[in-house]
């Protein structure tokens, strides 16, 4: 049941427990209890809204930064990751396999702001060996949802 609840909530966080219970053919009490448990266990970490900022008047830039670091003895990568992800500008941090160590996603108001963050905060960190910053030019799809096209029902109204 957990997996099914998550599958639905991931696409529609606003669905009521009442409707969720109907969709899954379970009782409301069970579904509600299951959600409470998953929130407590940090399986459900929040209920966010997917926003296409490009369609608003709000200025926003997203940058993807490849970061190479020297892991600290005894701490591995986690300690460095923590020093990076504590910044509020940092949207996401992933440890990667391959040619670099971290992908850091930054959201800022301007390119200059992001550049400043990288040059003044991220790059000077002791453990950071190098950074490569890539700015996002256009978002086509995010969180499994197309941001550029809207679903349109092309079917005839009535068919056998």
């Amino acid at each position, binding site marked *: 049941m957990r997996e099914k609840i998550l599958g639905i909530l991931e696409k529609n966080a606003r669905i009521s427990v009442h409707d969720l219970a109907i969709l899954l053919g379970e009782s409301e009490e069970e579904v509600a209890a299951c959600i409470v448990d998953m929130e407590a266990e940090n399986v459900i970490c929040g209920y966010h809204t997917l926003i296409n900022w490009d369609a608003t008047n709000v200025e926003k830039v997203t940058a993807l930064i490849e970061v190479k670091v020297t892991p600290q003895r005894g701490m591995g990568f986690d300690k460095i990751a923590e020093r990076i992800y504590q910044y509020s500008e940092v949207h996401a941090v992933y440890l990667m396999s391959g040619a670099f160590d971290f992908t850091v996603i930054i959201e800022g108001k301007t390119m200059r702001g992001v550049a400043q963050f990288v040059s003044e905060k991220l790059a000077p960190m002791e453990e950071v060996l190098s950074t490569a910053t890539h700015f996002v030019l256009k978002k086509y799809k995010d969180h499994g949802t197309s941001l550029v096209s809207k679903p349109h029902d092309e079917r005839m*109204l009535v068919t056998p």
Partner: protein
Amino acid sequence: MRNPLSDKVINIKPSGIRKFFDIVSEMKDAISLGVGEPDFDTPWHVREEGIYSLEKGKTFYTSNSGLKELKQEISLYLDRRIHVQYDYNKEIMVTVGGSEAIDLAMRAMINPGDEVLIPQPCYVSYLPCCELADGVPVFINLKEENEFKLTAKELLDSITDKTKLLVLAFPNNPTGAVMTKEDLEPIAKICIEKDIVVISDEIYSELTYSGEHASIASLPGMRERTVVINGFSKAYAMTGWRLGYAAAPELILSQMLKIHQFAIMCAPTTSQYAAVSAMREGDADVARMRESYNQRRRYVVRRLRDMGMECFEPYGAFYVFPSIKRFGMSSDEFATKLLQAQKVAIVPGTAFGDCGEGFLRISYAYSLKNLEIALDRIEKFVKTLEAQA
């Protein structure tokens, strides 16, 4: 000028859906729960395979019975899903949708005057295909109290010494009824005793929500007297690709193939290449869509019951078939008034046979959001009717 037309064709009644379609098309911004096809797009890997085949210039005829790779995949699929083994070379053919296979099966087996048992309510094409093949259609009126399953008694009561074929279409359009292995066993026994061949239209087989789909062909003694019809439209959301197939003993299939060879030549090549990908890598897509339909099914049934509409629990396809008998009007009247008052298009049960009177076919091949809006409107309509009563 002399009458250029065939009397046989003139006498075929136009589909009841057609009539309703004309009314709906006149109505601006109507929302519909009236379609008989999936709302999902064909999975991208399937479309991609079709595009790739075009890029590679695979634009020629395939053999009459279809691409060898596809027939092999179909053979493996049938073994995996209904546990019946068919020789891909002699017992499987690819058709232009399941619809063509229905037509071929009737034409290959019916002699003038042979009786064909057609349980109703059912899909609209069995009757005209039977008539075009000079068969005599004999309807069996399925009952709501049996959850629209065919019972042994109903079958026995309809058999005469002219009975040759039985059409079985489960999971069913329009009722959503399914027949389990236990339900099919007595039917199979009668078919063997009375020497009846079954045309088993299993186009909705992947959309079964309780247990595994059961095919009558898998029961002892039935493989040799069953034509299994299935296709890609419903399971893989591929309606527009027009691709189906038939599996039957060589004796029957070779004659079906003869008609297909002269009338059609072969099913669309692009679609066949795409379908290979659907069969090889499509299981996860089917599972995802099935789960989504199942959620909507529960939602629609619950909403209808909450607003006081009686409906039995459908375990297959993507239709709910509620009764509107308590409102004291015909299906046609209810559907027309609903359309006028609330702009919701629903197909009256009578489009699927006279015994569909008193019922509506509601399709849940729509997004939840769409279903919610439409059901809210139906609820409003039902409340007005109740207030008037």
